[in-house]
């Protein structure tokens, strides 16, 4: 495609991801780390 002479250069950061990426299956999703039991402060 002929787009002519360059006029300007800039950076585009999409607000939303333009790629419809497949969501990981529930069992493939990273498990939440186990929380340490809360110990009451002394």
């Amino acid at each position, binding site marked *: *495609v*002929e*787009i*002519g*002479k*360059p*006029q*300007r*250069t*800039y*950076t*585009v*950061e*999409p607000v939303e991801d*333009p*790629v*419809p*990426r*497949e969501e990981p299956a529930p069992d493939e999703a990273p498990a939440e780390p186990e929380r340490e039991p809360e110990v009451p402060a002394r």
Partner: protein
Amino acid sequence: VWPAEAELTAGCNRAWTRLRAHLPWCGDVEHHVPVSRCSCGIYATNDPDLAAEYLYLYSEVLQPHVLYRAIGLVSLWGSVVEGETGWRATFAYPKRILLPRSARRSDVEAVRAGLSDYGVPVELLDETDTPVARAVRRVARNRRRRRSTQSW
């Protein structure tokens, strides 16, 4: 081939860049893609008629590797070089794919089913009334006129 569910990332494939990469005294010739001084990047045009002409690129010669031609809208991001009639960018992904009609309806339906992997709307040009669809009709009409003039 544009990957499905992942952005297409541009690289610089310019012959001069590739040649210089093999010359030790040239140092590191790789550059950010795209840059205005090079011609690299993923191209898109803001002129639907210009894009529509590409549906017929080299159509006069046999092209066994071409299965089907599509046109559409594309998302571009990353570094973008804006030209007079379009852009070159680092990343791209189809936003909407439009398919021209085929001699056989089953062909276009098979292509449409295959392109559904991209996860974006895939439509038949005949069923849309967008600037792109109008441009494709206009270009097809002009080509028919040119051919009929040439045959006189």
